[in-house]
């Protein structure tokens, strides 16, 4: 008897959990409620949970699901709030927000699994490097006709991402298509431990930058000067993936691809110049060894300059030393940087493309981007003073402008490989660059062979 009672109780409790609570949809007979339990995983592997309950689709409303990867729990909560706001403001649309990742699966796994199963949301975010793969497989919609009908202007967003987002599938060049709109952008900066700068007695990089003297030579002086403090102190650190070393190539005027991105450009003299500067830097003991995660020692106060994107800022705010951000030093080809971005795209299987496009537009409005930017991890992708002002309010760092300057410094825009496979190219490139930087592969050999070694990524 007791067991049956407990069983009954468990069933009723589950019914109450699934249908009860603060449900207000039963107030009128026309509404329904979809309770969505969502778990968000931050980029750094820290998991958090944000429960979003989307209420009440009025009769005739189109229900749209959208998914984007938050950088941290706070961002997941803001996306949930934005979803509720837009659900109320957009005509004839009811929204459900999904962060897309959980304890067991990352964003990319979740998205790919959902797409395979045909259960992907109507609108979702993907990294800029995936645009070509998704577009060429007809997974996402070309939104140009809806954009033209709504009066959208491509020039409202930074040209780098829009170049990729308007690329024509047939030519592989920017053209008349529109695969989505960028959610946000980011650039690299150098997080500076001001206490170590003072202790080492080297020139402050922020002053050097202000005086127009922040070049590679000055950078090397600062790095070496800090490292001379000895012990575990190092002058500089960067992570071992394509973004950071890509920025060094860009500073030297090189890059991964040829100008039209149709072939490998790793063997160009400019690319080799950038890589050589990086290899020289890593040949000494002044830096965190290549391949080691430099963030823990930077946060421990033992690294002077730490190269990372804007997304690292919320985490850096927890350190207990004085810090700020400075732009990347000018390289052989002048100022340079890297422009990261991701985009909201529309599922090709959505039942209402027009409404989905309206959602993409709404999600990239200046006011929405301003809400996200206030959290400090994202730079607005829309060229909008309102959004930029919100971004600049997040302090520390005092010098938020360093990231915005990165947008002006001819950054190399990350992007897909329309003429080949970006994931395959990266897999092949990463290990060889690491070999060169750590000195286990000769630079001349690298220059002579790397493009033939990565040729399979271009289908040859």
């Amino acid at each position, binding site marked *: 008897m*007791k067991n049956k*009672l407990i069983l009954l*109780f468990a069933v*009723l*409790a*589950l*019914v*109450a*959990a*699934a*249908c*009860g*609570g*603060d*449900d207000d*949809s*039963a107030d009128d*007979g026309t509404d*329904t*409620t*979809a*309770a969505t*339990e969502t*778990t968000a995983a931050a980029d750094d*592997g820290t998991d958090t*949970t944000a*429960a979003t309950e989307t209420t009440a689709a009025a009769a005739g409303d189109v229900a749209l699901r959208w998914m984007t990867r938050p950088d941290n729990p706070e961002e997941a909560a803001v996306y949930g709030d934005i979803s509720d706001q837009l659900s109320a403001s957009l005509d004839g649309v009811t929204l459900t927000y999904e962060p897309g990742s959980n304890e067991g699966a990352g964003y*990319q796994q979740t998205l*790919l*699994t959902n*797409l*395979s*199963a*045909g259960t992907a949301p109507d609108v979702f975010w993907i990294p800029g490097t995936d645009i070509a793969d*998704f577009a060429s*497989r*007809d*997974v996402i919609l070309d939104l140009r006709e809806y954009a033209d009908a709504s009066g959208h202007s491509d020039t409202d967003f930074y040209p780098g991402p829009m170049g990729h987002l308007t690329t024509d599938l047939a030519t592989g060049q920017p053209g008349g298509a529109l695969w989505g709109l960028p959610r946000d952008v980011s650039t690299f900066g150098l997080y500076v431990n001001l206490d170590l700068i003072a202790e080492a007695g080297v020139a402050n990089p922020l002053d050097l930058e202000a005086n127009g003297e922040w070049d590679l030579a000055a950078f090397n002086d600062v790095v070496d000067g800090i490292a001379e403090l000895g012990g575990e102190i190092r002058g500089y650190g960067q*992570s*071992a*993936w394509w973004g950071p070393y890509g920025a060094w190539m860009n500073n030297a005027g090189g890059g991964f691809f040829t100008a039209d991105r149709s072939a490998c450009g790793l063997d160009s003299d400019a690319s080799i110049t950038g890589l050589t500067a990086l290899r020289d830097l890593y040949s000494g003991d002044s830096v*965190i*060894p*290549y*391949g*080691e*995660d430099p963030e*823990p*020692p930077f946060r*421990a106060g*033992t690294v002077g300059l730490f190269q990372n994107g804007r997304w690292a800022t919320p985490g850096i705010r927890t350190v207990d030393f004085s810090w700020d951000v400075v732009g990347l030093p000018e390289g052989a080809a002048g100022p340079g940087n890297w422009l990261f971005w991701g985009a909201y795209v529309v599922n090709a299987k959505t039942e209402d493309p027009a409404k989905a496009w309206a959602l993409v537009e709404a999600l990239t409005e200046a006011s929405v981007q301003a809400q996200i930017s206030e959290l400090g991890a994202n730079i607005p992708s829309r060229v909008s003073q309102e959004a930029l002002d919100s971004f600049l309010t997040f302090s520390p760092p005092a010098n938020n402008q360093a990231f915005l300057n990165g947008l002006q410094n001819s950054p190399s825009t990350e992007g897909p490989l329309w003429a080949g496979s970006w*994931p*395959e190219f990266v*897999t092949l490139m*990463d*290990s060889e660059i*690491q*070999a060169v930087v*750590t000195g*286990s592969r000769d630079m001349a050999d690298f220059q002579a062979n790397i493009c033939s070694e990565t040729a399979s990524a271009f289908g040859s």
Partner: protein
Amino acid sequence: MTAASVEPLSISSGEPRWFRPLLVWRVFTAVLLTSALIAVAVQRGIVLDGPVRWSLLVALLGAVVGAGIAIRGTLQQVHLGRFSGFVIDLLLMVVLGFIALNRMDMFTGIDAVGEAFNGNVGWLAIVILGWFVSGFADRAGPNQKILKQVAQWTMIAGMIVLTVAMGLIPGLIEFAQRLLEGDVILFAVGAVIAGVFARILWSDSAAHLFKTTQTEGENMDGMLFVAPNVLGFLAFFAGPLIVSLFISFTEWDGLTDAKFIGLQNYIDLFSDSLFLTSLRNILIFGVVAIPLAVFPALLLAALLNSKLPGMKLFRAVYFLPSIAGVVGVTLIWKQLFNSTVGYLNFMILKVTEWFNALVGTGWEAPQPQWISDDSIALIAVIILFIWQQIGFNTVLFLAGMQSIDGTLYEAADIDGAGPWRKLLNITVPMLRPTTVFVVATSTILALQLFNEPFILQSPSPPSGPGNATLTPVVYLYQNAFQEFQIGYASAVAWALFILIFGITLLYFRRSGDDGVLTS
């Protein structure tokens, strides 16, 4: 209740009332399943792509054949008709019920349950208290009956208040509304009818009608008991396994239609330098890590098996790493391994300084780059794996040791054997079945290595410097989720499965030869 404790019986007493409705239901389910099969086959009504479609087709084909057998057996009133009809009804009940609940958005996750309980924990505590007290009331002496009743009524009252406070009444109304929405009611009614007929077929009267023997009845009862587990196994393990085998014979990116290419993925594996590198890495890893995770555990278990004070505490301490979350543990080790601020290199530095001061040497402390040096990156993963695994293996050995007959040791004591001799000549031989199990499970875990290199190397690529920490599962992940090569990744998975299966089989065959499996 046991349903089938009867001998075969002729149906001279006539058909029971439920027999004709059952026949109608049998025909209806056969038509329904055949229609579903045709709909999936011709892509009308149920439009699915790729391996999902093929898997459903195979499942539906099996169900249609089963439905045909059930009709024939029902008409002939033989046990096969009862059994096949019972299986089909049971599966229909589960599948239709699942579809109905899913369409009602009832699968909301454990967080929703947590939220529903949130704020009502006090009432839940009363329920739990009532349950505990009623359980222990038997020991309450002369007042046990009153105490038990009071506790049970407290529990019932707590349940009522708790469910109402959690929103049960609006929840039931909402449940009813969702049930009546669209086609949900059809699935729900279908599930109930299937459940009713499954119950009828499990009854004594069905056993009589279908001439079920006692053995057949007992088999059916047994199968029913294991049915939940078998269904879970089929749905979440065997099903995906078979689908992945099919996918491994295709070129599939997970986004567009799969293209059948036969064994090409497997042929490509043999010439794929990265896959071969991953195999080499995992074999080196296994050869080093498995003995180091097993033999020290045996010695540790021998120590912990003593009756010294504090041993229970040490047993718990050594077991902790195996229950700690692998992500958290790996993140901590990542910090320890950090070449500039990690404690491991700090310890090496301090020990060297101490040694230099003691002996008067001037040795320079080595500061290995545990994670970024391709010559030792795999060693870092090995250290982490051993640390995680050794406690679990110790507990297994400890359990094995405590099951060894104590008289063997008494006899050895009489013969004058010392602790070391007893360990080698009694403990180790008697632990052979445990050792085989420990080695086999450690091998399987080692060959499936993924989380440790993935997290240790983050934010760098998980393959590590010079692909030093590239394992087959990491390579599988990269192919599936970064390069959109699901077909090829499935082939990697199956190649790894064959490797693990082969090695495990080898262990157990050798152990079987030695009589371990029969001991």
